[in-house]
């Protein structure tokens, strides 16, 4: 299921301590570090605006699925999906 190799991109978020998006609490804003999913899903999420470095705000949490704001849009993500998205604390001057 995990296909991404350890990435050494210039993206600063990946160098900080990361955790899955599913653990982020309601109201918190975080920055996307990387997505650990198959190529299809990773591409799908990227096309919905979930690209490395983007800032994500968790709006609502509903037991399993979460509702996030990303690039001005609202997305509902299943729990399994939120577990595959690794995030880091935000940095200033991000998208």
């Amino acid at each position, binding site marked *: 299921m995990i296909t*991404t190799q350890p*990435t*050494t*991109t210039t993206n600063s978020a990946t160098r900080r301590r990361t955790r899955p998006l599913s653990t982020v609490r309601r109201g918190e804003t975080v920055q996307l570090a990387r*997505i650990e999913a198959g*190529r*299809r899903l*990773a*591409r*799908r*999420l*990227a*096309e*919905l*605006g979930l*690209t*490395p*470095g*983007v800032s994500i705000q968790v*709006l*609502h949490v*509903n*037991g*399993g*699925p979460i*509702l996030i*704001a990303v*690039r*001005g*849009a*609202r*997305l*509902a*993500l*299943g*729990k*399994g*999906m939120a577990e595959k998205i690794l995030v880091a604390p935000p940095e200033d001057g991000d*998208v």
Partner: protein
Amino acid sequence: MSEFTVALAGNPNTGKTTIFNTLTGSSQHTGNWPGKTVARKEGVWRRNGDVYHIIDLPGAYSLSAFSAEEVIARDFIVENQPDAVVVVVDATNLERNLYLALQILEMTPFVVLALNMMDAARAQGLQIDVQMLSQRLRIPVIPMTARAGKGMEQLEAAIASVAQKGHEAKQRPGADFTPPFRYSQPIETALNRIIKAINQQKSLKNRYPGRWLALKLLQEDETCIEKISAISDADELLALARHEAAHLHEFYREDLDTIIAEERYTWLNRLVRQVVQGRPQGPTLSDRVDAVITHPVAGLFIFFAIMWVVFKLSTDVAAPFVAWIDTFVNGNFAHWVIELLALAHLQDTWFASLITDGILAGVGGVLVFVPVLMFLYLGMAIMEDSGYMARAAFVMDRYMRKLGLHGKSFVPLVLGFGCNVPAIYATRTLESPTDRILTGMLVPFMSCSARLPVYVLIATIFFPQYSTVAVLSMYVLGIIMALVTGLLLRKTIFKEAETSALLIEIPSYRMPTIRNVWTEMWQRTRAFLEGAATIIMGVSIVIWLLMAIPVSGQGSFADTPVDDSAFAHLAGAISPMFEPLGFGNWENASALISGFIAKEVVVSTLAQVYHVPQEQPAGEADLGFWAQGKESLIGLFRAAVDTLKTIPSIIGINLFPPEQETEPPALVTAIRQGFEQSSSGYGALAALAFMVYVLLYSPCVATMAAQRQELGARWMWTSIGIQLTLGWLLAFIVFQGGKLLLS
């Protein structure tokens, strides 16, 4: 006069449908895309003597062939090459919406951007520099509020002018165009090398937009590779693309798809920052409402309350209209037809019987679903148009997920308790075909309202003290069987299928427009009439034929007692199948055969075959033609009044009708004797097994027709097979198991 083709593209919930409805009005035609269960909408728009064929592409967030919708939208643009593509975007959500526009601009330069929902953008304090946006994207940008009809004229003018240019460009194919956006240098270099290789292949050069094809090959897009392998000698080209992709991967050390999406978004983000002033601060009104609607507890209550209303709409509120259609078709209308037949001296012939008992019965069987479906689609259209459906999926997801289903699966399953037919059509809201098929196969286990009279009749005869418990346990058993079957199917047939995890956009709340809701209601109901009517009619005629053919006795064709008809003999032939279940006589088998057509007729068939005279409704026969017509109109009016009366009762629970009809004692005795005989003394057990069988075996022809239309013939047959097997097994367990326990 010229003819043009114009495609409408856009994310879901951007008002694309509103623009389509405004442009095409009543000239719409709905069908399915070839080989897909995705609706295809097409319509004609005329302007200054020119004809524009407008094709409404399925809503999609991107064109990377992730879902059936995306493949259809993408293929249409590159294969059919419309003269113009209108991309509808939500002005309040530009960054995300323009992503699709950017992808389309890599396929064709003949694009018009409909900047919709300007009213909402203004209300949020957003100012959009339309001119700059147009310059940067190099296409006409039309600010508009489609719901209020604002900006339509400008959009129409822009479409006409761009379509004209696109049409002319087709005369000189292969002309290059420059998209507004460029990737970083290494990707561009790779693209140029691949474009050069493509241009050397004559079969490819003018067929696809070169830059787009090069990008798809670089991304190793499977559908694209398949396509070009079929039309050209692609080995060398593919090798080159693979080589370039590997090279880029080494350079970026990241997945190329992600890099490409990231670069597009980075460009769009900068563009939107330049073009849009006054970004909204803090949570929007929609977000604040969602704090309640998507709340783990409150959200559930709201969801159940809304489901209850939709359920009531498609049952109680629709019921008076159903009754009116039923009496009209089988009463007055039938009388008129009989009078007409009499004028032609055809009364009492087999032909008259075919018309009244075969065809008219079939017409009635189809038409009674119209009010049910209209009210259901009313509820569904409001739920979808307002943006609530996406929230419902979010709220229910964690519960349905445990059953291997999608959050939205809950809606069809609940509707199934009213009627399975609209419930099957309601599976359309599910995006993934696997979820749609799985849900559509489980719907028949939801005990629909037509099965209730059978339980009530049998339970009051055999379990007079416990009839309520007996009836309720049927509902519970249906739910349990749905759960078990769902999990079994997930473990077997759908083992390989990807569980489509929840990933949906939550649109802002919007007031549904009457026009959209009405169009949606009418289109979908018409699709039912076109798709399912033939099957229901056909089966109705086949049953008539079986009833008409005398196999024994003195009767002639179309004038034979039921006992002597081919129908009774067929029932007799299959009745041994039901012997181990305790109800194997030809009378019960006939009721089950007609129940295969529609559960509504099980009780009346039982009455017919057990020879209980049915009371004729009084006051029908002697009215004249005009009096009958008047009667019908009054009936329609009463139906409307009755509907209004039921609306308050939506809130109250009313599972059983207050005035229960008492069955004639003769029928009770006959049925009791019939079951006692067929089960050699275990009448009550056989009756319980009969109820279980009625619950589980195929609900009706209309449900099968709906399954065929929505899931395809293969899944319809699979579903029927599962129901017949499961029904038999469970009834067997109940009867034989019960016998063991009792002895």
